């Protein structure tokens, strides 16, 4: 495996890690309005992600850093090309992070509520914009010979990217509700499951529409005639199993499968993209690929050594922190 391929895989893994981990944070954020009924319940479900959410978001920052280091042109074209979307994403991440942290320091119910609202809005908008980003990316964008992306409104906002954004929101919500089921006791625990059943049904419909649109709007079925349908199928299977286990009260399995559903979708997008990193809708010759967008061999080899030295530690202490905070959160008396 060449270093370019290895780093494409690593970038994909970092984004999958981000969607898996921050996905349930987003879902928990949405649940502060969709599930929780009062400030005690809000506090209860926020406590489930309190010690973790920041480290989960670092997966996105690391993915961004890895893009910059390993594929500078991918980073440059995507971040400047998707300008407005990134502004919205950043604003969402800003109000979200400040919202959850500052709610701890609020003195009155009114200010606490204000921070909760920011956290909710941020948790809704962020996954939607990331979903739009990745789906419109595989659909293809007007990238010219100089690797510059000049997109029109319809390149960013179209039926596929809107459904894609919604799909990521729904997947995150399902994943988050499952996480709440896994991490809480009491009334909210029961209601999480019943809300989960409703959202799962919407998600099924969404997945089917998404699969059909993927067929018509992208070349993923042509480029990967096996992997694309298989991964889409696996997503649906994971969703079904997630729902079944959630209803059986086997929350560990339910969470594994809701997470796998997220992972399968993201994996499908990255596999369909490979070896391209950005698709030009003007001319395939203008595609950014792992070859013309990558850093030099020396940088990639240094980065590989650093990454494989550090990753075991990073994974080790992150897993340990989940172990430390493994107990369920009960409602406040």
């Amino acid at each position, binding site marked *: 495996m060449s270093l370019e391929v290895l780093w494409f895989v690593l970038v994909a893994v970092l984004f999958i890690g981000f969607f898996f981990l921050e996905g349930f944070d987003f879902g928990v954020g949405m649940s502060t309005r969709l599930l929780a009924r009062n400030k005690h319940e809000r506090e209860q479900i926020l406590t489930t992600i309190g010690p973790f959410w920041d480290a989960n978001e670092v997966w996105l920052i690391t993915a961004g850093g890895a893009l910059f280091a390993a594929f500078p042109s991918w980073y440059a074209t995507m971040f400047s090309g998707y300008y407005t979307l990134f502004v919205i994403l950043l604003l969402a991440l*800003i109000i979200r992070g400040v919202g959850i942290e*500052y709610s701890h320091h609020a003195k009155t119910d009114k200010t606490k509520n204000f921070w909760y609202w920011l956290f909710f809005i941020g948790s809704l908008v962020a996954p939607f914009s990331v979903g739009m980003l990745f789906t419109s990316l595989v659909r293809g964008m007007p990238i010219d010979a100089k690797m510059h992306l000049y997109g029109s409104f319809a390149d960013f906002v179209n039926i596929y990217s809107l459904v894609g954004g919604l799909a990521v929101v729904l997947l995150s919500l399902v994943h988050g509700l499952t996480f709440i089921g896994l991490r809480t006791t009491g009334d909210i625990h029961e209601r999480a499951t019943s809300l989960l059943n409703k959202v799962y049904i919407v998600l099924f419909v969404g997945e089917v529409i998404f699969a059909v649109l993927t067929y018509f709007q992208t070349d993923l079925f042509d480029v990967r005639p096996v992997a694309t349908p298989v991964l889409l199928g696996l997503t649906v299977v994971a969703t079904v199993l997630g729902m079944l286990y959630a209803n059986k009260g086997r929350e560990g399995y339910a969470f594994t499968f809701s997470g796998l559903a997220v992972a399968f979708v993201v994996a499908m997008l990255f596999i369909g993209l490979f070896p391209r990193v950005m698709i030009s809708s003007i001319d395939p010759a203008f595609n950014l690929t792992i070859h013309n967008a990558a850093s030099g061999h020396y940088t990639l080899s240094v980065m590989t050594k650093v990454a494989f030295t550090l990753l075991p530690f990073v994974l080790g202490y992150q897993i340990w922190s989940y172990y430390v905070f493994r107990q369920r959160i009960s409602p406040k008396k």
Partner: protein
Amino acid sequence: MDVLVLARIQYAITTIFHFFFVPLSISMIFLVAIFETMYVWKKKKIYLDMSLYWGKIFLISFAIGVVTGILQEFQFGMNWSEYSRFMGDVFGAPLAVEALLAFFMESTFIGIWMFGRNKLPKWTIALSAWLVALGTSLSALWILAANSFMQEPVGFKVENGKAILTSFTALLTNPQLLVEYPHTIFGALATGGFVIGGISTYNLLKKRNIEFFKKSFNYAMVVACVAGFGLIFSGHTQAQHLMKSQPMKMAASEALWEDSGDPAAWTLIGGIDTDKKENKWEVNIPYLLSYLAYSEFDGSVEGLKTLQAKYEKLYGDNINYIPPVKTVFWSFRIMAGFGGLMVLLSLIGLWFANRGTITNQKWFLRSMTGAIVLPFIANTTGWIMTEIGRQPWTVFGYYTTAQSVSPNVSKGQLLFSTISFSSAYVILTIIMIMMVARIAKEGPDALLKEKLDTKVDLMDKEAFEK
């Protein structure tokens, strides 16, 4: 205003705001880690209270530091795509390592430190605080490695119009990094020292929680004083290095249009005329510039006009290589002046603390509270001098700021982002200052009351027993 100007304004605003919180976070968690260690060692409750109380300010600062930091990373690609393309091979690596090595560490252990107190032994909590402190300092190291490359490119070659890294070791042993990193860390430590110092004197003046704030003040002054002297020495070595690596920045920071005499006098203040390229008047201190530049009382320093002629030969004659002289000149003076004032105040503070008469010194207690702003202004002006002084380059000698900007981003988009980011930052900063002011006024008693109010903490052990 064109896209370039807007992108620069946005970079200035977002970076200055971001760096408002970074030094505060670095130093607050360092002091908190010391308090946690003292708590493990001496087992006195006051150290735990100190850690919790000052830790609150750390958390408030850290939260904004994190979210404004994400923007910093994304901004290079969004506004400076051509810079990112040119520099990605060199610049991306330290950024990625920063995330992998530092961000994961600080974000994970901050969770352990915040929420783990009832689940883990005391020493683990202290260790977590130290790991967060280590993470914040490592984060600074990597981002400054990237910044140092922009000031003084090392360990690379230019191939097909792109900077290609040839030595990772050179990147990390960049002489600029070796002088820039200590100076930044000392500046950060002084910030926390003065924030804790100023809030403590405020409460001492009001005669509240005297024991608590006296103890806090003592720790803060030791840190501020050590950091102050560190700042002077590291600043001096940095200036000497600047003479060799970026003489143009040095000349601009002295508003030295013509070559100096030998020995060179230092201009304390002056009336700068950038159009006529001269100073209308100056107040000079003989010998001092020679000393600043070479640590000796002789030696002349090249002026801006000489350097412009030199650079025209080296890099082409169609560019003005002289950075905005007034900005660089005055930033340097504000930074150095406030730095000096901080050293003086921390020495006086230590003196009173040592004699135990601090509570009687009303004028001093008041000045220390006012002095909270000093490190923030000094940090900011220091960076303004460093970054504006490098203009017109982003990568000194290789890539200009004008070349760096994204060609595909429109004026409207930049206006939209600049306005939304700056308004968000202004609001957040105001809220943050109000929160810290409230904590300062309430003192540690409110913290204890809070603990009693929430007897069944959601993460407490008893909350899990049915």
